[in-house]
Each structure stands twice: as C-alpha cells, then as structure tokens.
C-alpha cells in the first residue's frame, strides 16, 4: 500500500481507473456472450460448459495482458499491471464475475435452439 505522501507525488487519477475498468468490463461482457453462443452450439453441459467459460475468459485476459499490458510494462522497465490496474486480481478474476450472467443467458438460449 502506498503511503499518503507517495500518493500525492504520483496520484491515482480516478477517471482513468474508471475508464480502464469500464473498458475491461465491456470487453468481458461482450466476449462472455459470444462464449455462451459457442458453448451452446457445441452442446456443452454442466461442468464442461463452465470450464469452457473459465478457460476462454482467462484466455481473453491473457490476450489483454500479452498484447497491451505487458509491452507497456517492458517499455517502463517494470511490471505493466501497476500501470493499468490497481491489482493483478482485477485483470485476471474480475472478468469471470462480470460476464457470467450474459454467458448463462446465451448458453441456455443457443443450447435450447440447437438441441430442440
């Protein structure tokens, strides 16, 4: 945790934090719906469907990390997570919760449509 003095020297701008979080949430919401479509068409059931969701959401996060966060970190000479997010958990696990309801909806819909 940063001390108050360090926060003053290099402040965290609330607008930027919100923008980053919102961008990530939008991406996860959208991809979760698409993963639901995929899982439904593949006809996955119970655990395999949720594992599909977890794997692909983590893959999305990994792509975000690899294509955007990591290069910026390499340029700065330190880890990129601190540059964009308040903690690494926000990037890796935040997306799992965000998109779950959208995933269940499209999964159910397409599973029902395909297996009618």
């Amino acid at each position: 945790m940063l001390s108050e003095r360090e926060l003053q020297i290099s402040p965290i701008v609330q607008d930027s934090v919100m923008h980053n979080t919102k961008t990530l949430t939008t991406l996860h919401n959208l991809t979760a719906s698409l993963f639901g479509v995929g899982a439904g068409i593949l006809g996955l059931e119970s655990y395999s469907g949720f594992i599909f969701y977890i794997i692909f959401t983590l893959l999305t996060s990994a792509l975000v990390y690899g294509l955007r966060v990591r290069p910026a970190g390499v340029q700065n000479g330190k880890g990129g997570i601190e540059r964009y997010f308040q903690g690494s958990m926000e990037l890796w696990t935040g997306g799992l919760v965000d998109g779950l309801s959208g995933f269940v909806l499209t999964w159910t819909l397409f599973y029902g449509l395909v297996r009618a």
Partner: protein
Amino acid sequence: MPQVPVQTIHRDPQLFYWILIPITIVMILTGILRHYATVLMAVTPKKQDLPTIREQRSLLRAINLRMNANAISTPSFNARKDYMVTALENGAFLKEPDKKGQAAPNPMTDPAAMEGMMGMMKGNMAMIIPQTLIMGWINAFFSGFVIIRLPFPLTIKFKSMLQAGVATKDMDPQWMSSISWYVLCIFGLQSVFNYLLGSDNAASQMAQQMGQMGPGAAPQMFGPGVDAYKQYQAEAENIAVLDHQYTLEGVENRLLQSVKV
C-alpha cells in the same frame, strides 16, 4: 455413480418462434426504449439566480481548496485558508446572510424541491411501468409453457424459481418456464445493452436499482431543506484542521535520485 436418465420432453418447435424469441426481442426493445425515455425525460436544470449560485459555488470552492491543498505552497495555502475559513464562518456567501442559523424551510412548501421529487418519481415510473406491463403480458399469454432446458443441473431448491407457473411435481428443475426465461433475460441482457447503447446506458433494471442505492448513501449537496450555513461551518472546520504538506517539497532531491548516471 448411477446414471440418472435424462428427462426428455417433446416440445413443439413452434414454441421457439412464438414464445422464446418474442420475449427476448421485447426485453431488448424495452431496454432500448427505457434508455431513450430516460434520456428524453432528463430535465435541464433550471436557471438559478446569482446569490443561489454563489452560495453553492463557494462551498465547492472550499472543497476544491481542501482537496487540492497539496498542490500549492504553504504560505499561499495559509492565506487561502484564513480567507475561506473566516468567510465561511461569517456566512458571507450565504444567499440570505441575515437568516443564518434558522431552521431550514419545509421542503414540501418549496416549489424547487417539488420539482426535484417529480424528477425522481419519473425515473421510478420509467422503471416500474414497463416491468409491470411485461410481467402482465407474459402472465396473460405465456404462463404455463415449459420452453427451454438449462444446460447445467440444479438442485431441487431452484424448482419454484425456474418453473414459476408450472406445477408439475416430478419435472427436472433444469426445465424453465417462460416467466423464468424473462427473469434470466433481466439478468443477462446487460451485455447486449452495453453493446447496443454504450456502457453508460440506462436500459438495465439492475443498474437502475444499483444507482438508486448509490446516491442514497451520499448526502445530497444542495438539496432543498439542507442548511447551507451548517455545511459551511463543517467545511470551514475541515479546512482549518487540514495538515498541509506541499507536494513539491524536496522535489529537486527526488529528481536527482531518479536520474541515473
């Protein structure tokens, strides 16, 4: 582990065209309608007279001074502090400086206050009316249909939630009735609205309900019935006890440390 045979129910494929898809489309369209209704009903703030604006802005000025105190040097902060604290405690910026310390007027009698409440009522109505209408519509036309099967198993507890309107004792709780599909749509369509309307949309009922809880926690700043003089006094105290530290203090040493030779 013994394998439980999977229940199969023969459903008419027409169910999809006449129940599932209509409900989904109607839910999406209501969300879009609600978004635009909220945008259209947003009232532009009424033009206020000069003393009222001054009363509000000087409080904001005091708050800004407190928030950004570290960006100015100590002498200039002290000068501003002395000025703001005296002015706030005297009530020099008040709309009616003679009336300070009196009880706030009843918000019901103030016409400006009534307008604010009307705005809140309208926002609530935009949420409640479509919800009631769609619920009634689904109940009237589609109640009692089992339309879709969840792709994951659930315990028996979920039966009353998922099979609302269908009283069949032995049916697997995976099967969903039309009303439950509606409930699932409420939760799951947020991402669709994000995609269609941008992430600041007012389409989702969930977001609306969250939003109502949010501002309730923070006290209203310039609401009717709030005594401005009391706010001034509290803010003056906040500024007076502030521990001031100049951010640029010792900046030359920090700069030299960061330069690698």
